[in-house]
């Protein structure tokens, strides 16, 4: 059974709208939680890295630098967690109606991206207020974010399938995200000589490093991102989208019976 692209698009949109509606019914602060969470971590990290471990002091407006990385990171970790659980959470639905099931992990990512987009607007306003004026490179944030969404969707498809077979996957993702956070240039910048050269070249292989570098360049610095960052982002995105859709397509008939 196949569904037209228009049907898939309609379903994806409906699922995203549902996700957003459900999340903010009965929540007073609503969307602002998405901003409050990174703001809160920003305050914690700023205190830790400028008062306790003196490290962040070398970076101007360290809090804003942190926030620039924390917003996409929070989007990444929230999307990965929820898309990993998306198939298992919809067991009954999958077992009783046919629909394009790829929409489930992807809808989680898209719903979170709405938050990211709004939060980025707030961030940009704050950056301008503190004298970090944007350049024309600001527009590059849009394709970078779209690629990030595609990359996370690909990862989510793989993990969602894995989670159906082994419930350990969702737990594992949560634990790995903790390590992943420190392995990503969020609390420290790349290319500034602040981390040892060996560590820096290792961190560049992190699928998120390219994206975070682009965000730092375009938003925080207002300059042009380095070429390696684009190479990394495009490469990893292609990799995860191709592998993710292939894995999902192959596993789908089996997954439905396993659920």
């Amino acid at each position, binding site marked *: *059974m196949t*569904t*037209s692209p228009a*049907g898939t698009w*309609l*379903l994806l*949109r*409906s*699922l995203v709208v*549902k996700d957003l*509606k*459900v999340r903010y*019914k*009965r929540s007073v602060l609503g969307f602002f939680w998405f901003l409050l969470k990174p703001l809160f971590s920003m305050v914690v990290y700023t205190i830790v890295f400028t008062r306790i471990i003196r490290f962040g002091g070398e970076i101007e407006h360290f809090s804003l630098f942190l926030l620039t990385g924390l917003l996409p990171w929070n989007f990444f970790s929230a999307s990965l967690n929820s898309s990993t659980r998306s198939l298992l959470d919809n067991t*009954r*639905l*999958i*077992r*009783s*109606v*046919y*629909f394009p099931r790829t929409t489930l992990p992807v809808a989680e990512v898209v719903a979170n991206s709405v938050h990211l987009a709004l939060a980025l607007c707030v961030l940009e306003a704050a950056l301008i207020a503190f004298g970090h004026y944007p350049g024309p490179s600001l527009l590059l944030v849009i394709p970078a974010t779209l690629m990030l969404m595609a990359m996370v969707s690909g990862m989510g498809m793989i993990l969602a399938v894995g989670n159906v*077979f*082994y419930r*350990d996957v969702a737990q594992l993702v949560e634990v790995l995200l903790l390590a992943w956070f420190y392995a990503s240039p969020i609390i420290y910048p790349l290319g500034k000589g602040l981390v040892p050269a060996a560590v820096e070249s290792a961190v560049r292989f992190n699928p998120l490093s390219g994206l975070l570098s682009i965000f730092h360049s375009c938003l925080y610095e207002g300059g042009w991102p380095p070429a390696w960052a684009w190479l990394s982002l495009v490469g990893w995105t292609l990799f995860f989208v191709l592998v993710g859709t292939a894995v999902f397509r192959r596993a*789908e*008939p089996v997954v*439905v*019976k*396993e659920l």
Partner: protein
Amino acid sequence: MAAPGTVEFRDVALDYRIYHDRTLSLMESVMNLFGRSSSSETFRALDGLTFAVAPGESVAIIGPNGAGKSTTLKLLAGIYEPTSGTVSSVGRTASLLDLGVGFHPELTGAENVYLNGALLGLGRARMEELLPEIAEFAQLERFMDSPVKYYSSGMFMRLGFSLATSVDPDILLVDEVLAVGDASFQSRCYDRIYSYRGSGRTIVFVSHDMEAVSRLCGRVIWLDRGKVVRDGSPGEVLPEYLSSSSRRRAEDGSVAPREWGSREVWFDRVELTDSTGTPRRRFRAGERLLVRALIRARGGERVEDIVWGFSIHRTDGETVVGVNNLELNRPLLTVEGSLEAELEIGLEVPEPGNYLLGLALTDPVRRRDYHWLDYHFPLELLGPRRTEPVRLVDAEWRW
């Protein structure tokens, strides 16, 4: 391209994997990497199934448990993909497999209708047109703006049924007897399904309720172990199926009637009747079942604190109900020599069919099993009375 409503199964096989121990599966798969064999095996639910349904036909799929009926419906709905062979269905398929399954409790009735429309591939504009009709049929016009978590289960199912059948399907899949809402709504559900039958849409119906099958369907496909046993009109297939299933029941040793116990107290005579005292084995929904028993004690002694339990089993032996007067805080029996006693049972029957009633006299405190009659009394429990094929609207006598 075949006409909408056409269904075709060509040499379809479907395998499930069965795990002997799911908890070990991560360990197991790590072992598999090192070439150890797996503890899972496959089970063939459908084995070379071939049949075709023309537009407008209403077909029932019958068979014992595990015959592959539900698997066939899931393949038809596109939920499963066949392991081999091809399944094709032309046109929009609506399934009444699990009503209201896509509903989110926090969303309102109307929001859920839109969301479910999207699942079926219908846009918001189309659903807006259908919404009044859906609400009206479900009798929920005033509740479409309330979150469905405030709905009763009846309202929930009504909306589910109304939605699934309002989208103008070419093929309607119905699993088991529709236990939707109250009797009057149920009869409206059946009316709607009957009207589909008249309007040239294809219906595929899976049921254990032979009465509904013969009323609704013009053709019956009898499956067993994933294969077609017989395919024909209800008149041809049903009598043979019924005699085969009663033979199967008799042959199946696990549910043969058994009688055992110490017999300090025993059932000397047992009679199953309806509430008027007429002996009966078939009961309609809502009718009360009366077990009238003469209980005797050995040597005419006085035996106190007797627990009288009963159980209802499916024909494969699975216990559906099992309870006694101790658990329900009813008085315990005392037998002095002999006692005429009655047990009155009221049942709700969401799944009509054949069942077995068992009775027991015990004393759990003193660990005594006085007398057990396992799987002893066959019962036929029928669904609620449904719409008759013809209903009188009114009649007048003039002169």
